[in-house]
């Protein structure tokens, strides 16, 4: 569980769309991580817990490099096929809001841990890869932080983040499936929307 500390960096992915096309997935992960952490290291507001600023940073730097539609599909699982295009859009929007808010918050507890990039196993023509990194802290076991990326027309996009073996996406699967069983896809959309509203109003 301490591994959630790594979310700090988990929240951190991405880069400029123009660049993305040329860039290899591991180079992309490294560039975005470095960019975001450089900003966090200098920003006293984010360090002292300013979530709003952290969200802005994540939206600008990280979001463009994620495929939230596929992330949401993975979190929902087979029930995804039952959703209408309209429902899919709503689900993805709400899920995105939730993940961005939660993990922007994680950025505010970043404390100078180093990130180590492990060699990426990839063959020419691969369109789906895992980029493996580690968060190194003195005195404790390094925390594995892996990103799954797929190649799309606009470049590589992250669709799963796995912290110490825990997929931030599929960790919701049972909870979501339960809700769909009880109240249908609309019930799930409602559940996500309610949660987001709560988080919105809870913070000053």
């Amino acid at each position: 569980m301490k591994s959630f500390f790594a979310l700090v960096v988990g929240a951190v992915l991405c880069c400029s769309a123009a660049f993305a096309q040329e860039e290899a997935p591991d180079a992309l992960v490294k560039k975005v991580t470095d960019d975001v952490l450089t900003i966090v290291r200098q920003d006293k507001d984010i360090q002292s817990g300013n979530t709003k600023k952290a969200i802005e940073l994540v939206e600008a730097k990280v979001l463009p490099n994620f495929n939230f539609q596929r992330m949401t599909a993975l979190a929902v699982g087979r029930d995804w096929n039952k959703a209408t295009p309209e429902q899919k859009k709503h689900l993805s929007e709400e899920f995105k809001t939730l993940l961005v808010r939660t993990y922007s918050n994680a950025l505010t507890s970043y404390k100078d841990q180093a990130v180590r990039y492990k060699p990426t196993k990839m063959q020419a023509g691969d369109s789906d890869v895992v980029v493996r990194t580690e968060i190194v802290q003195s005195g404790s076991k390094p925390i594995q932080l892996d990103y799954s990326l797929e190649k799309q027309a606009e470049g590589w996009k992250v669709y799963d983040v796995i912290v110490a073996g825990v997929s931030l996406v599929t960790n919701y699967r049972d909870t979501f499936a339960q809700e769909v069983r009880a109240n249908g896809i609309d019930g799930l959309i409602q559940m996500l929307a309610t949660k987001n509203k709560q988080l919105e109003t809870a913070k000053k």
Partner: protein
Amino acid sequence: MKIQTLKRALAVSSLTATVLGLTGCATANNPKDPFEGFNRAMFTVNEGIDVVVKPVAQGYDAAAPAPVKAGIGNFFGNLSDIWTAFNNFLQGKGSEGVSDVGRVLVNSTIGIAGLFDVATDMGMEKHAEDFGQTLGKWGVGDGPYFYWPIIGPRTTRDTFGWVADSYADPVLHIHDVPVRNTLAGIRFIDLRASLLPTDKIIEQAAFDKYNYIRDAYLQHRRAEINDGQASVEGRGDVECKQGRCY
């Protein structure tokens, strides 16, 4: 000492048996969590205990200077490296085990009784192995999931692993009772304090805190047993591509 440990082991297994008996006929909604009723009750108990523990951990976190906290964490980390080394050998990971022994030797001497983790700077990386992972490596399955008072989430296998871990815990073998309790207490608060940043995230991310912790724990343990090799398999049997899930 042996008898005490045996008693402890028996206590846990009879507790397990009682629990199995008590909740055996409860309806199981989730195949991963057949004793959900009991587990949720224990979860509530722990949340109650945490009302007292958390402020203490927060006080410690705020009052203790960073080097002191690091020293305390390193000291207990050094003690746990001994058991980690042993478990690495049991799992046939000789080079990791040798490195762990090296860590203990270096940190206990140059690192002043473990207060400084100089071994990491010398390239001997810290590992974290326990007997539950060793059993997992040997092919013992998870068994039903449990949420215990104080110690929290454990699969059945890891519950027995925990009994072995406690037996091997040097702190619990100290004869001087006040010293033993003080050390165990400090370690518990230090552990709780290290989880403080996680609290806020779970609070925000989870729809149902109990579910979120259970599913994360199960994925995390699977990855630990595989030493992080198969972490992507945490996604399970469903794959989604081009807008469809299979």
